[in-house]
Structures are given as structure tokens and as C-alpha cells.
């Protein structure tokens, strides 16, 4: 079965620290990859997505992610986090053969001011 793994379930950082959240998927072939964010009390929203072209994708609020096909990975990065980045982060993937995006279990990020 297709799956998406997020290895970090809870991450605690201080402001200005660098962030990298891991995401691995098990799909073969063409894959579409997404990172969604859920701020406290808000609904899930798209942070960034990859479906073709440049494997380094830039999203909102200074986030970026790199698609490494050989590693089946799509890690999320931010050079310097802010307190306002405190949220739950979900990686998701879909392939040409599935209409159902598969989500990882999520990573809870807490940033201390």
C-alpha cells in the first residue's frame, strides 16, 4: 500500500533555529507532493507543492522543500523559524494511479520565543 512517513512527530525549537522536517513516500512513478500546515485553531492550508520541474520548491512564509527522487523524500526546510511557525505540519502525496492523496501522521512543531 502507498504510504507517507513523517519521522519527526514532535519538534521543539527556539526562534532563529533552522528547521528540517522529514517526509518519505512509497510511491513509484509519477508523484505529486504537498506540505500542508495547520496553525492552532485554524484549518489545514497548503504550504507548498511539487508536481514537476525544479525539485527545489519554494512556498509561503520562507518555507522550501526538496524533492529527491532517489531517496523518495520531500523534506521541508526553513533557515530561521519564528514563534508564529508553531503548528502541525502534514506531508501528503498522490500519484497518477491513485485519486486519494495519502497523508503522513503529521509533525507538531513548537517554536519558543
Amino acid at each position, binding site marked *: 500500500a502507498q504510504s507517507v512517513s513523517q519521522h519527526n512527530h514532535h519538534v521543539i525549537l527556539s526562534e532563529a533555529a533552522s528547521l528540517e522536517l522529514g517526509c518519505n513516500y512509497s510511491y513509484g512513478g509519477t508523484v505529486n507532493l504537498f506540505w*500542508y500546515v495547520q496553525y492552532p485553531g485554524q484549518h489545514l492550508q497548503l504550504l507548498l507543492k511539487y508536481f514537476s520541474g525544479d525539485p527545489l520548491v519554494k512556498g509561503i512564509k520562507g518555507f522550501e522543500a526538496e524533492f529527491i527522487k532517489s531517496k523518495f523524500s520531500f523534506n521541508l526546510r526553513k533557515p530561521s523559524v519564528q514563534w508564529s511557525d508553531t503548528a502541525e505540519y502534514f506531508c501528503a502525496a498522490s500519484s497518477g494511479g491513485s485519486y486519494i492523496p495519502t497523508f503522513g501522521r503529521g509533525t507538531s512543531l513548537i517554536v519558543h520565543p
Partner: protein
Amino acid sequence: GAGVSQSPSNKVTEKGKDVELRCDPISGHTALYWYRQSLGQGLEFLIYFQGNSAPDKSGLPSDRFSAERTGGSVSTLTIQRTQQEDSAVYLCASSLELAGPYEQYFGPGTRLTVT
């Protein structure tokens, strides 16, 4: 423009009662998805619609769960004879098209508590 809306935002019900959860997707979005979000469990896929059709119902946890979509728009998720393990946040999402690179737009969710 208007996003995905869901109602009610919160629902408390007694075990054994039926509940209906409503989702109003973004106008023009052909694909609609239902998920269940439990604490620490991520998003559990329940069902998707392409137009009014739901080709795959295998994600529904039991036959107490059903969903329909009418007019290619509003969708209703019905849970019959609710159980305590049904307590969760039920999320609805819509996208322009099914599959491919189309992002999903999520609603605020309905928090269901079964007592």
C-alpha cells in the same frame, strides 16, 4: 472568495444516535474528500466524490458510515448509531479536479464528541 464550509462546527451526541455532517465545497470544485482526524493519528481518508459519484467507499470505517453528494456541490456524511470511537474531527476538502497536482482546500472541520 468563499472557502470550504462545514457545519456544525461542534456536535455532541449520545451513543447510539445518528448524526449528519455537512460540507459545502468551493464553487466549481469537482472533487470532494472526507477525512477523519484523531489526536496524534493524522488524517484518515474516508471517501471521495468526483461530481456526485463516489467510486471507492472502502475507506469508510464501517457500514454505519455513509455519504452522498448532490448537484455536484454539497455533501453530507452520515454516521448511524454513533459509537464513542467515532469521536474525532471530520474534515472536508475540495479540489478543482480529482488527482494530479491539484491542491486540496480544507474546511474548518466538525468536532464530533460521542458521549
